[in-house]
């Protein structure tokens, strides 16, 4: 509750500071202070202190898991703005407007982590999506940005329509929008419930870009300004996953037998499409777009394993993946072009930056002592505990191996190919900021449980 109220207020404050406060540095500082306030307000609620203690008539429930996920999202956004603030103010005329949109999106994120009613699910998804359409098209003069925005907008609202039909069919079958676990004794319209759930499943797959509904992802991620791609591929996507898990960890029973057919199909096709297509990309940005589809396949494992281990795993995976992606995209922003040739010889000219990029890419690939290893370990472990067949694990491992190939292609371009990197002027502090992310990744790679100890006390 605190997070929802405070983030909406902060969004309005940022909107006004767009014309009251001059200077992009000041606006960035206000945004960072605002995020700090938001984190404090959210932690206060975890310790039982409310700004407004309002009875939400069970529209929202605040679980420890959701509140903690909120804290992580706010922390990630803090790191994101801290690193990319200067880059954001280069796009458009009013940086503070973009910060306002970030706060509104965080409001949507906090609804998505705490909803208990399909109405709030719909509202949360829309609050998250509509600012994303704006951010995608924020580079108004660029035709790529325009194309990405219109594609994202049309596809996004199309999937919203499908989500709404699903919600309506569930309402028609059960007479309520609440997420109740289907009971054995009560007679529901079985067909309408299943049809509704499958439509919601499709729409949520759309939002997190899982395979049969992934086709918008490469174009949109490629066309949007790289700073905003970084936010879209990490925090916005992870929030979608939290919502996805909240619905289906209780509701999958209503699908019965067919759930065990649909989910492995989606997981395997996501892994297949993401990894195999990423191998053939020349542009690093497009490669990262496909790799984010592949990572979504791994995050879907949390849906399969419905245990506390899966919940811990999704938190770890989302933090590690977001940190590493924010890092790689932050390096990519400083490149003059997106092709892999731009990285040639980076190891000689910028040794520290090249080393940090290597850490990020190793983490995405899941190499031990970086966080990505334990993230993948928790995911695989949770599906094994949930009783999935060994074949699913083997398929996942094969695709994880394929992903090493295209991540290491960039490392190879940096260290083993002679050439001049097409990189912009870089000040020292930027590299130091990135090394903070790398250190966090290494810490999580050694002590992953540091992240969720706080979940329990």
């Amino acid at each position, binding site marked *: 509750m605190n997070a929802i109220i405070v983030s909406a207020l902060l969004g309005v404050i940022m909107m006004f500071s767009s014309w009251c406060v001059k200077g992009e540095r000041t606006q960035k500082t206000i945004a960072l202070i605002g995020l700090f306030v938001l984190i404090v307000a959210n932690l206060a609620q975890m310790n039982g202190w409310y700004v407004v203690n309002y009875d939400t008539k069970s529209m929202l429930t605040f679980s420890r898991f959701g509140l903690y996920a909120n804290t992580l999202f706010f922390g990630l956004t803090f790191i994101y703005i801290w690193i990319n603030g200067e880059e954001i103010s280069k796009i458009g005329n009013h940086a503070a407007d973009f910060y306002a949109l970030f706060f509104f999106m965080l409001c949507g994120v906090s609804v998505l982590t705490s909803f208990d009613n399909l109405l709030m699910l719909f509202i949360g998804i829309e609050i998250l999506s*509509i600012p994303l359409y704006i951010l995608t098209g924020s580079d108004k003069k660029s*035709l790529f940005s325009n194309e990405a925005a219109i594609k994202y907008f*049309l596809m996004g609202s199309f999937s919203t*329509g499908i989500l709404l039909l699903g919600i309506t069919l569930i309402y028609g079958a059960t007479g309520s929008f609440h997420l109740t676990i289907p009971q054995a004794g009560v007679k529901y319209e079985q067909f309408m419930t299943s049809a509704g759930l499958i439509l919601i499943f499709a729409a949520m797959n759309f939002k997190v870009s899982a395979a049969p509904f992934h086709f918008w992802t490469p174009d949109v991620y490629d066309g949007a300004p790289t700073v905003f791609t970084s936010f879209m591929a990490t925090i916005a996507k992870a929030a979608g996953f939290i919502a996805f898990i909240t619905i289906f960890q209780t509701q999958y029973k209503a699908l019965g037998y067919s759930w065990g057919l649909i989910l492995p199909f989606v997981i395997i096709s996501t892994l297949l499409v993401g990894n195999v297509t990423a191998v053939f990309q020349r542009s690093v940005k497009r490669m990262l777009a496909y790799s984010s589809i592949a990572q979504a396949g791994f995050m879907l494992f949390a849906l399969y394993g419905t245990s506390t281990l899966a919940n811990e795993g999704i938190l770890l995976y989302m933090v590690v993946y977001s940190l590493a992606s924010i890092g790689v995209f932050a390096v990519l922003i400083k490149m003059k072009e997106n092709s892999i040739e731009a990285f040639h010889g980076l190891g000689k000219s910028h040794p520290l930056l090249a080393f940090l990029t290597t850490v990020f890419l190793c983490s995405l690939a899941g190499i031990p002592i970086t966080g990505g290893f334990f993230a993948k370990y928790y995911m695989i472990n949770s599906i094994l505990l949930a009783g999935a067949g060994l074949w699913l694990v083997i398929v996942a491992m094969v695709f994880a191996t394929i992903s090493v190939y295209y991540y290491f292609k960039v490392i190879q371009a940096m260290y083993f190919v002679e050439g001049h990197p097409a990189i912009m002027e870089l000040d020292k502090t930027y590299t130091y900021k990135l090394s903070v992310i790398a250190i966090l990744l290494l810490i999580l790679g050694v002590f992953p449980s540091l992240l969720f100890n706080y979940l329990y006390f």
Partner: protein
Amino acid sequence: MPIQYYIYLCLALFSIGVTGVLTRRNAIVVFMCIELMLNAVNLLLVAFSKMFHGLALASDATTTVGIEGQVFVFFIMVVAAAEVSVGLAIIVMMYRNTHSVDINFLNRLKN
């Protein structure tokens, strides 16, 4: 009228919307088809709401069962309006740069 008629009507409207989105090439028309999908859902929600209300009226004359379906319709209308304002802005931005609203024109990102 039986509820089935409403379900068939709404699913037909929804399918017309989906077909339009998938086949038309004018951004405005695609957008109209998405609105058609949302309004088909609105109609279905109101029909279900009346159905549950009517069932509950038989036992209790002052019941408010089924009201939440109609409240949902208002939320959909508000969110759709917000989406329209953003979407039309994006379409206008595209028109300024390309002097066309044809989405076939948008294929630069493919290769």
